[in-house]
């Protein structure tokens, strides 16, 4: 440790687990890339996969605010819509070739959503209490009304003709592969950034606020700043998710980004476990795929979600993972400790 203190190098133990995780990611990426390329995964299924990765970005970023900071957000879809329209309008009108315009559009979407996050967050987060929930709920509703009322957003007819992310004339498979690559790596990036943030001193301050705001303040934590930081960061990623969604679907319909969608994202975060990033990922994957098998129950979906939400809160508020994380090294450590425990026992007898 003393050595490391001087150099600031990554400790060896961490390096190994980073390498393993990176390798696993790469293998997963290549595997699905090949499956899409050779047609094993058809366009419909790869479309669902795209939605799944977008949902992962949304759920993990929402978890940062609702799970780690402990503040309820009811307008995540609103920030998503801000990002979606920003990116779509940019690629539509910037005049840049799409291969350049799209990446810029993604960043721009995040930034504009983050600016909205500041506007919403400053009045709500200066105060203690549940104002963020109500103000984001209002925001989600109002932003939709504003989009509907404006001309440049296409109003109620929706925004049409959003360019595909590859130049015109590219074949469908390349397009699927490009979309897949974008959403996969952006989801990975989101998860890694939020994961690292939560484990930094800043993340600890954010978690401390969830645990006890008064004690955090008394421990020297600038609570308003950190609350705003986490919230704006989440808004940024929601905006990024919106930009991906806009270019995945190609048409923006303001009614898509309604309260139900915000609650759906919240449900994913709650089911996975508020405060567990891996839980969010698992829940986002499961809840994106599950409805595909329940096509006949479409009318009852939101009703079922509502019931699940209440039941989880009443009987298992920690969700699937609680505040724990799923990790390979954790599992290995548990297995080996069990083994050594069993060995010791064996010896004792």
């Amino acid at each position, binding site marked *: 440790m003393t050595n490391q203190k001087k150099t600031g190098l990554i400790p060896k133990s961490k390096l190994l687990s980073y390498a393993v995780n990176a390798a696993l990611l790469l293998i997963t990426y290549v595997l699905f890339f090949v499956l899409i390329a050779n047609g094993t995964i058809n366009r419909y299924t790869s479309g669902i996969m795209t939605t799944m990765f977008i949902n992962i970005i949304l759920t993990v970023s929402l978890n940062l605010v609702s799970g780690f900071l402990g503040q309820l957000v009811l307008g995540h879809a609103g920030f998503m819509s801000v990002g979606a329209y920003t990116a779509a309008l940019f690629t539509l009108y910037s005049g840049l070739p799409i291969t350049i315009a799209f990446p810029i559009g993604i960043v721009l979407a995040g930034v504009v959503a983050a600016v909205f996050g500041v506007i919403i967050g400053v009045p709500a987060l200066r105060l203690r209490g549940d104002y963020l929930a109500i103000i984001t709920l209002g925001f989600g509703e109002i932003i939709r009304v504003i989009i509907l009322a404006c001309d440049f957003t296409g109003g109620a007819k929706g925004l049409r003709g959003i360019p595909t992310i590859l130049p015109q004339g590219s074949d469908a498979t390349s397009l699927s592969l490009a979309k897949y690559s974008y959403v996969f790596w952006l989801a990975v990036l989101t998860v890694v950034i939020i994961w690292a943030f939560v484990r930094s001193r*800043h993340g600890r301050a954010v978690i401390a606020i969830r645990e006890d705001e008064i004690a955090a303040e008394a421990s*020297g934590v600038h609570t308003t700043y950190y609350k705003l930081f986490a919230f704006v960061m989440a808004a940024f990623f929601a905006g990024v998710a919106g930009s991906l969604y806009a270019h995945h679907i190609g048409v923006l319909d303001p009614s898509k980004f309604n309260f139900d969608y915000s609650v759906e994202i919240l449900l994913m975060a709650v089911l996975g476990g508020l405060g567990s990033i891996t839980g969010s990922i698992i829940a986002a994957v499961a809840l994106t795929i599950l409805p595909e098998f329940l096509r006949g129950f479409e009318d009852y979906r939101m009703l079922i979600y509502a019931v699940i939400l209440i039941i989880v809160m009443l009987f298992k508020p920690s969700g699937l993972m609680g505040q724990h994380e799923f990790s390979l090294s954790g599992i290995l450590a548990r297995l080996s400790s069990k083994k050594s425990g069993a060995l010791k026992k064996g010896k004792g007898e």
Partner: protein
Amino acid sequence: MALVEKEKLLQQDKTDRPVLEAENLGIVFGGLHAVEDVHFSLRREQIMGLIGPNGAGKTTVFNLLTGVYTPTTGQIKLEGQSILGKKTYQITKLGIARTFQNIRLFKDMSVLDNVRVAMNQKMEYSALAGILGLPSYWREEAAIEEKAMELLSVFHLENNAGDRAKNLPYGQQRKLEIARALAADPKVLLLDEPAAGMNPTETAELMETIKLIRDRFHVAVLLIEHDMSFVMGICEHLVVLDYGRIIASGSPEEVRTNPKVIAAYLGGE
């Protein structure tokens, strides 16, 4: 100011310039004077007790000192600088850390993290450095972990570093709260009923710990406590509050024999 005078002042500084002063401190809640005309001065490494019957306004004084409430009247100075109007977190940064009457730990965080949160304000790496895992991140985190473990070992908590704070037994939770306050590297430590709920052995141990941290971390301690043997045994100076006003102050011996204090305690409650 002449140079000579300045030097003189500096000389004085080292001996007994007060680290925390309160002058004419008062706050009114809806017409009620919860605290009125409270004044005291705390010297470096002094242990002072703030005592008085229930509802005398002791915790309110703590809340005034730490910026939770803004005083209606008066002045608070930390090392000669006014801290009036500063936010709680700023006051902590400047050097006043506290514990709470009803323990307020970060329950679901590890014991180690409880301490590390309070060290946050002294750390420097940016959010970006944290996210990217830049050298400054690893360097500072390693250093802070070592410092935090050292601090925990003062309170014999080093073996519980990985436990969740809420799983500690009561006495250890109280200790952890003191450790967390010290982690903010304060000049003044405010302890709100540190011995509450402790048995005589634990209380005796706590007395030793408080003296130890005073000597080791060079902090001045202001504490609220009901346990009279504890207060008499550890405090060098006492301030007695009743109905929000100071009714006596002085050495423990002077206060013990003060008729006003006796009356407040016997007749007050």
